[in-house]
């Protein structure tokens, strides 16, 4: 027994000394649902004074069938928010338009899109995309293309696919430039030590390329890039090493493995996706070439690690590969003619007859070719970049800017550069917070209450929300341990001023209420600029004149969308009918509230004591005075301080509701209620310091639709009104069903030249669709 007691005491002291024992497991959140947003715009280069049309897609692969019902879209310059829009989501997509004010300065802006839930994931998971906006009054628009650095500042990486440059075997080699030197499309020559060209290639739009070379053992090799005097040495040739070469032809992945010279033998090949081995082949002890062919469709889509090794040494060589399964959701885009003239009718057919997936949700944009940037994000590129970010734990935003505009072939070349990563899996799995809810029903308004003196969060504080109205409406929410509160708002509260107060009955000290701004972004603008051609610079200058003409004629090519207005939801009212309603206007004019209470509101008394006014009310049920003063509502907004209302007189007050019952609303007790409704919104003068002016003032914008002109054959040549449209057509709601086709017609304008027909979107199985078809107006 004595030992037992000693043990208890000892254990107690151990816990005192090491309190870490008492804290449960580390804070991981099982709310690990991830969402992402992708936004398609009609083009990339705009004039201030035009509309930016967009379609947004919500991407999530959770199995709980939960997804957000609102996307927050912001247009931001380097320093400030230009526009913010709350866009309702239906079937995981939504669309809208943002007007680009005439006064916007020329420069790069970014579109940021996120949901409330994504705030748990952190800002680097938000969608971001640059657009270029030019002011038409800018005579010398300072539009910067990608900075052209000096060649000496450029970094050049040369890396063999197999890590070794093996003599006598075909080695795939990546050559990559970095440093913003205008490297794309430059020729590259591979020279031997005699300066003979043995290979040539061309850098792609991203500034890299690959080539295959079978080096001799004694030779040295160099790369020479057009425009740069310097030569770059290729790695030394070696006799020893493991060759791992991956090629793709149609649906087959060809993997070549070789162990050469003194290099240890290769005994297995593995393909790993995330944490899982998705393919494994034992090939026995091999010192010579082994060819393995794998059907791409039999291994998962996404980023893979292809590894070769042996049982003693483990992994010897590794190559990352992005498996993009051949898109079986084949959608074809056809035009009814090869070329068109000005104001011709253009017929498009979107053919989904070979589509495998049930349907696709797409946007269609027909725009002047010069208004599209060559190096901006694509939908499929964005999805690949998310995959890579998750696999390597990269910042999603940085991954999107690096990989978001790369085709799969280019990406697989780039992946040669990636060396063995220890962290390869679902690295962005855990959300960094769980402060924010997923908005599946109404908009959620959230915030925090802190103590004014100590700045510490205040828990169990009841936050009351009202909006000015002719009825007393009320919502309340209690703060949690972190001082946070949340309200789910019905559409009654949209686009209304919101007033907050902490119920004095729950917190004694002075507090500060901060409401979360859904459009607040802390990370700064950081985007690569567009690579602009001379034609694009010329087009930009011309577009300034085009917009001036369009404005002179009053053309904006949009129309208001007529949406059926849903009846507004009921507000949360305090009571159905006040016990008594008094209209001071029906009586002799009275100069102040104490006079009004004394003369015409008999259950109510206001008295001046020690320089402050106090009030009391007689209970209608008992006939006795309430021990506490009544609660006041001014124009529907709660206030506890009668002193602020004393000056109100008969001329200012429309009506007084006297509800002198002991009243409960939820768990809040009211010892009688006095509602004062003024003729001229006196709450603005008295209570304005409590107003929150954020997000809901911009809520749920009314969309506009693109509307192009239609020409009857006989009116086609009526040029009294010019048609200088840069955007010939925009439709953010094109749905194609499996096995069906869809015809879309619109008219060409007067601007001759090259256009792009851009069909973008996603299928019901989550496969991106990205078709760019040229169109010529002659």
């Amino acid at each position, binding site marked *: 027994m*004595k*030992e*037992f007691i*000693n*043990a*208890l005491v*000892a*254990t107690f002291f*151990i*816990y005192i000394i090491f309190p870490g*024992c*008492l*804290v*449960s*497991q580390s*804070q*991981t*959140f*099982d*709310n690990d*649902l991830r969402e992402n947003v992708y936004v398609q715009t009609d083009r990339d280069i705009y004039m201030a004074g035009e509309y930016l049309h967009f379609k947004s897609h919500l991407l999530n692969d959770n199995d*709980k069938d*939960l997804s957000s019902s609102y996307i927050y879209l912001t247009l931001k310059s380097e320093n400030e928010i230009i526009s913010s829009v709350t866009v309702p989501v239906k079937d995981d997509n939504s669309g809208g338009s943002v007007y680009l004010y005439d006064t916007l300065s020329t420069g790069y802006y970014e579109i940021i899109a996120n949901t409330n*839930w994504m705030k748990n994931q952190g800002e680097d998971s938000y969608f971001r995309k640059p657009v270029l906006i030019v002011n038409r009054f800018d005579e010398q628009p300072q539009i910067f293309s990608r900075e052209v650095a000096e060649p000496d500042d450029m970094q050049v990486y040369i890396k063999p696919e197999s890590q070794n440059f093996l003599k006598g075997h075909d080695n795939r080699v990546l050559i990559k430039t970095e440093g913003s030197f205008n490297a794309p499309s430059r020729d590259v020559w591979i020279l031997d030590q005699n300066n003979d060209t043995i290979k040539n290639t061309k850098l792609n739009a991203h500034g890299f390329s690959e080539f295959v070379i079978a080096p001799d053992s004694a030779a040295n090799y160099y790369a020479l890039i057009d425009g740069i005097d310097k030569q770059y040495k290729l790695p030394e040739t070696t006799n020893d090493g493991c060759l791992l070469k991956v090629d793709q032809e149609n649906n087959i992945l060809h993997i070549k493995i070789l162990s050469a010279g003194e290099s240890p033998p290769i005994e297995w090949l593995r393909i790993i996706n995330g944490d899982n081995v998705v393919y494994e082949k034992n090939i026995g002890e091999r010192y010579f070439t082994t060819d393995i062919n794998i059907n791409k469709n039999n291994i998962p889509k996404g980023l893979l690690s292809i590894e070769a090794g042996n049982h003693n040494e483990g992994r010897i060589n590794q190559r990352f590969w992005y498996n993009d399964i051949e898109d079986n959701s084949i959608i074809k885009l056809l035009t009814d003619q090869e070329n068109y003239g000005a104001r011709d009718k253009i017929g498009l057919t979107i053919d989904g007859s070979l589509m495998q997936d049930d349907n696709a949700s797409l946007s269609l944009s027909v725009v002047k070719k010069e208004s599209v940037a060559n190096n901006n994000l694509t939908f499929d590129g964005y999805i690949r970049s998310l995959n890579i970010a998750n696999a390597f734990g990269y910042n999603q935003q940085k991954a999107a800017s690096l990989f978001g505009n790369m085709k799969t072939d280019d990406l697989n070349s780039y992946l040669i550069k990636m060396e063995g990563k220890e962290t390869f899996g679902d690295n962005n799995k855990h959300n960094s917070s*769980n402060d924010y*809810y*997923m908005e*599946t*029903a*109404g908009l*959620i308004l959230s915030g925090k209450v802190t103590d004014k003196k100590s700045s510490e969060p205040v828990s169990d504080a009841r936050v009351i929300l009202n909006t000015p109205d002719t009825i007393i409406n009320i919502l309340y929410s209690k703060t949690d*341990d972190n001082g946070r509160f*949340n*309200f*789910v*708002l*019905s559409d009654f509260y949209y686009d209304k001023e919101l007033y907050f107060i902490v119920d004095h009955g729950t917190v004694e000290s002075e507090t500060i209420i901060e409401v979360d701004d859904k459009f607040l972004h802390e990370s700064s603008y950081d985007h690569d600029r567009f690579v602009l051609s001379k034609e694009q610079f010329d087009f930009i200058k011309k577009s300034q004149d085009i917009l001036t003409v369009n404005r002179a004629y009053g053309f904006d090519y949009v129309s208001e969308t007529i949406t059926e207005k849903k009846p507004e*939801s*009921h507000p*949360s*009212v*305090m*009571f*159905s*009918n006040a016990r008594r309603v008094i209209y001071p206007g029906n009586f002799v004019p009275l100069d102040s509230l104490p006079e009004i209470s004394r003369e015409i509101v008999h259950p109510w008394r206001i008295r001046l004591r020690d320089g402050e006014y106090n009030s009391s009310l007689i209970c209608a*049920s008992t006939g006795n005075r309430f021990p506490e003063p009544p609660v006041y509502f001014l124009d529907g907004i709660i206030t506890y301080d009668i002193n602020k209302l004393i000056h109100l007189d008969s001329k200012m007050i429309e009506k007084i509701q006297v509800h002198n*019952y*002991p*009243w*409960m*609303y*939820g*768990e809040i*007790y009211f010892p009688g209620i006095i509602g004062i409704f003024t003729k001229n919104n006196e709450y603005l003068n008295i209570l304005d310091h409590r107003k929150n002016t954020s997000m809901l003032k911009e809520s749920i914008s009314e969309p506009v639709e693109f509307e192009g002109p239609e020409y009857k054959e006989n009116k086609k040549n009526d040029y009294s009104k010019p048609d200088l449209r840069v955007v010939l057509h925009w439709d953010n709601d094109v749905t194609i069903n499996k096995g069906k086709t869809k015809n879309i017609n619109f008219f060409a304008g007067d601007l001759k030249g090259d256009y792009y027909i851009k069909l973008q979107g996603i299928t019901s199985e989550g496969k991106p669709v990205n078709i760019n078809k040229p169109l010529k107006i002659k």
Partner: protein
Amino acid sequence: MIKPSNITLLCVVFFISVFPVSLKSQDSSRSITLDHKPKLSGEVYNFSMRSTGEDYYLDGDWQRGDVLLVSDKKVRDKLIKYNTYLDELIWMSEESYKRVKVDKSLVKEFTIDLPDRAEPVVFKNIEMDKSSGSDKKSNYLEKLYKGDISLMAHRRVTIASERLVSSGGSLHSLPRLRSRPKFYIVKPGNQVYEVERFSRRALYRIFSDKRSEIRAAFRDERLRIRDENDLIRAVSLIDEIL
């Protein structure tokens, strides 16, 4: 041989390993979505009445129920009871234990779990006019049958008689309460008709245009209307005919 100090050490190890106490637990799981929770409102209620005969609460005790408001939002799982004398829904706040007479104009219907009933009982707030025999603006009516037509019951309790009793040296009135339900048929379009008595004729009067079919159906079923159950059966037959 095991020494006392070894026993002590073993006990310490045992306690540490068997009782991983967590005094400060982290809330690592939380709902992903948030639902708006509507609130009940009403006057704090202090009604009490000494009486004999029937209880003026339907089934006396507090029961769990849901209240559907006129905003079509549902307040769920509250402690409620129905005062049949006042025809008011009473709610008890579980935080403050205050009893509240729920603002009737904000209630569309309420559902209450009664121990002697297999299914929750539904009461609807129906606007009555003078022609339906009630002098009240709206009443809570229990839904007995729901089809194209509905049969509803007003579970009212009235004072059947009063007697004077002496208590504490003074005389008090002691009412005797009696249950006197009234039955109503609600036709499409919310037309409300009182069923004046348990009789077939009362139903013929309400459905005069289908009198002969109804009479034939009652005859076939050999249905006589003597009580509430017969009335429910009769209304379901009429519903089939219509």
